[in-house]
């Protein structure tokens, strides 16, 4: 039987696959996809998957992701696959990789942390645990779980 695509192929852009079911909305949130977006974003939620049971898939047209955005995705979906599409072909495909340190990616949720002032430093976190996700601010040493990071 011919396999049909729920979202049509894109010409140029980025496909984020193997996002845990239900986390797709959070991924587009951290990528800054809001009401005034000027590129096409398709999100498929709760798609049957051989590997994961169910998954979310995101296709973003004419946009490519930078290091910080990939790090953010790795926090939400540590096993996500990124495909860079050029002229309908996959030009590059890789799995996101949660780094051991996150520098300048997210703000510390502790309002009393020195990194939330005008000091010339970027926020910096070390990964305490991947499952469940727990990160620790290198400066104030507060830990944050997934809920704190994305609230």
């Amino acid at each position: 039987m011919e396999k049909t695509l729920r979202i049509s192929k894109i010409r140029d852009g980025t496909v984020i696959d193997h996002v845990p079911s239900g986390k797709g909305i959070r991924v587009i949130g951290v990528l800054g996809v809001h009401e005034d977006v000027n590129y096409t974003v398709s999100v498929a939620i709760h798609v049957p998957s051989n590997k994961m049971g169910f998954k979310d898939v995101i296709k973003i047209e004419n946009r490519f992701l930078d290091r910080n955005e990939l790090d953010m995705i790795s926090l939400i979906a540590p096993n996500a696959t990124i495909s860079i599409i050029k002229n309908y072909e996959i030009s590059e495909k890789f799995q996101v990789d949660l780094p051991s340190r996150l520098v300048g990616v997210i703000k510390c949720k502790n309002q009393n942390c020195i990194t939330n002032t005008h000091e010339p430093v970027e926020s910096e976190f070390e990964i305490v645990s991947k499952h469940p996700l727990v990160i620790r601010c290198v400066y104030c040493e507060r830990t944050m779980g997934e809920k704190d990071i994305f609230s």
Partner: protein
Amino acid sequence: MLKNKSVVSIEDVDSDDLNDLFDLADSMLKTIEKGGSTDLLKSKIMATLFYEPSTRTRLSFESAMHRLGGSVITVSDVKTSSVAKGETLADTIRMASSYSDIIVIRHPLEGAARLASKFANKPVINAGDGSGQHPTQTILDLYTIKKETGSIDGKVITMVGDLRYGRTIHSLIIALSKYDVRINLVSPQILKLPDYVYTKIGDRSRIKEYDDLSSVIADTDVLYVTRIQKERFTDQNEYQSVIGSYSVDKELVSKMKQKSIIMHPLPRVDEIRPEVDELPQAKYFKQAYYGVPVRMALIYRILGE
């Protein structure tokens, strides 16, 4: 080895360092008790930057450096310093580290001392950052327990009061969790130990939380009392009821073991009644006294030969 290292968190000091500091503090104490000073750090300069009020910590650091034969430079009032002109802490630290051999900093924001250690080209000692860490208080607390009870291992330690915001408590629990001790935490619900402190403790099975002191007092070897600050409560009636139920008086101490001790990082307000001061269990002034030999030991290990 602490040579030329910054001490920002109690985790920067391992158990070998701690044992070494305790031994060295013993010999520094003997020097003090003989009424003497040393010239171990002659010609070394300590810069103290206190962005928050402090009495004991500041005086004991400065006394320690003088007793080691070194000298101290300080900013007497940060409100009139370059900070008031909008200078970043990073720039202040760069400047201070070029004028001195070691920097001691207290700051109201958490992480300030870690930031200072990144911008200084000299060792930095954290003398308290917001509700974060206060490692030298922890070292002297551990030293007091060892000195006044004989050992740290095997003890039942009860901490009472503000366990949520009290920085001395956070550092001390992390340090004690590496010893063979049982820890009782007694506090009102709104001042319970935060989860982020628990995440730093490996084995939590020896830590238990209680609402009131009476159920654990007879079993306690070390009662560590902290001040409950009025401003933490939105309901002042609740504050009044809490402060009453956690105060240590003669009657409560009569239920404690003869050889148990009472500690407090000071300043105290109402949480330990003055009538307790003369009892043999009261060790909080001794604890403050140990601040100088312990800080002498630490500064010497960082700057000495």
